[in-house]
């Protein structure tokens, strides 16, 4: 504890004595983390969008116009026996046509001139939420499709799958960008700490000569690197919060009207914690590389 308190005190005084070099390092770290967080912000919002859509997804079973009472009843029993189905509603052929006309009221003249109702009756199935919900829907859709009296089934699987593939790619991309940024940060911090080490070269050599423990020599520099990275990461979170607030003010209304119930959200707390932990790790590793290399090369 005494070692850490002393390390913290010395690190602080080192930062104070070379504030300009530290400021450049902190700003570079802040910019690097901001780029990563911007991607995370986009990812978090797209992820929440797909989750909301996922919750809204329903299976629509379109019935043949000529479906018999018996076939419809078999179908309804099949649905009632499926544990994943949460709710079912029947939309008659007439109801579907009325809803359609209501939605496209500006095209009433064309629709009325059609002279017949082209829409089929349908059963709309809501599924209870689970992680393998999409699979359950896919499986049940296949069963229903094979039943007599079913014209077709629909659950928008292609766009959901495409979107999920895109998100998986984005996740991979974020990991790669995050990894590259961390490597870059380690190099930046390593160089800044190298400057700090060389400015105190005589003092370090003297400490070693007098019999200071290696950790006693190393910790102030490790602390300095971690402090710089942490401050950089905290500032970057501040910058992204401002970007988020701006986006919210500018685009929240249009987002909400475009996608019902969707709100722009900030980076989740867990991601923010990973960023801060990542900053501490890169600060520690960058400094560790420099001070270890110095002690090995200079003291022998």
């Amino acid at each position, binding site marked *: 504890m005494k070692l850490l308190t002393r390390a913290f005190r010395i690190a602080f005084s080192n930062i104070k004595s070379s504030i300009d070099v530290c400021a450049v390092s902190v700003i570079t770290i802040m910019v690097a983390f901001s780029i990563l967080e911007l991607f995370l912000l986009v990812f978090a919002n797209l992820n929440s969008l797909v989750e909301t859509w996922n919750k809204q997804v329903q299976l629509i079973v379109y019935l043949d116009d000529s479906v018999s009472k018996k076939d419809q009843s078999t179908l309804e029993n099949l649905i009632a026996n499926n544990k994943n189905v949460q709710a079912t509603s029947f939309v008659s052929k007439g109801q579907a046509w009325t809803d359609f006309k209501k939605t496209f009221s500006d095209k009433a003249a064309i629709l009325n001139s059609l002279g017949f109702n082209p829409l089929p009756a349908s059963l709309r199935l809501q599924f209870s939420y689970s992680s393998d919900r999409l699979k359950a829907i896919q499986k049940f859709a296949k069963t229903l499709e094979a039943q007599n009296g079913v014209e077709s089934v629909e659950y928008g699987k292609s766009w959901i799958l495409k979107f999920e593939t895109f998100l998986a790619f984005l996740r991979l991309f974020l990991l790669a960008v995050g990894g590259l940024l961390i490597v870059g940060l380690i190099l930046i911090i390593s160089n800044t700490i190298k400057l700090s080490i060389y400015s105190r070269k*005589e*003092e370090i050599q003297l*400490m*070693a*000569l*007098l*019999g*200071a423990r290696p950790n006693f020599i190393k910790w102030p520099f490790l602390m300095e690197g971690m402090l710089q990275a942490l401050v950089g990461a905290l500032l970057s979170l501040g910058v992204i919060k401002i970007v988020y607030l701006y986006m919210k003010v500018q685009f929240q209304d249009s987002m909400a009207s475009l996608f019902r119930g969707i709100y722009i959200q900030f980076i989740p707390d867990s991601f923010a914690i990973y960023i801060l932990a990542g900053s501490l790790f890169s600060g520690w590793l960058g400094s560790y590389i420099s001070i270890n290399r110095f002690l090995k090369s200079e003291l*022998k």
Partner: protein
Amino acid sequence: MIQIFNLYKTYKGNTQALIDISLEIKSGEFVFLTGQSGAGKSTLLKILYSWENFDKGQILINGINIAKIREDNQYTLRRKIGVVFQDYRLLPRKTVFENISFAQEAVESPSERIRFKTWEALKKVGLTQKKDSFPLQLAGGEQQRVAIARALVNSPEILLADEPTGNLDPEIALEILKLFEHANSQGVTVIFATHSAEMLKARDYRVINLGKGRLISTK
């Protein structure tokens, strides 16, 4: 006790710094280490405080084989050894008092003891009135006194001096020598490297003479 057996050291570029050195220095002894420039005096001292590796041979300090000490634990050996250099190696931005305190902070002495021991060390070298001065405000002899106080403040068992009077007038050099003798009278083993003939004549201590990396005589 320091025991050196068949010690060899070669620097990069094949420069042989020490060749087959074997000698023994008893606990509490005062010895002069002498020889021309390049004889290997500084290299031998550096090896003794683990600042340089050696190629072959064995060194025992109080029975401990120093080659067997792991790099991470070399500080334990250095805590037993005080070192004084010709160029003093004081930290220019610290005061005399802070320079001496620094040696105790490095070995993590309790803070309440640091002030007391620093003051004691300053008294021993007669520099209490200069405690707030910076090294560059002092004369060469005074700077060397500070360096000696720093080397002695942690009560080492061995004191290694690498040409500590090389930059000083003969009169001042003798005063510095007396400080080492005082430490020796307290039981500290002193190895005093010098190539000054006056210094060697001034006292009757054993002289270890090196030449081109070899031990020429020890009498």
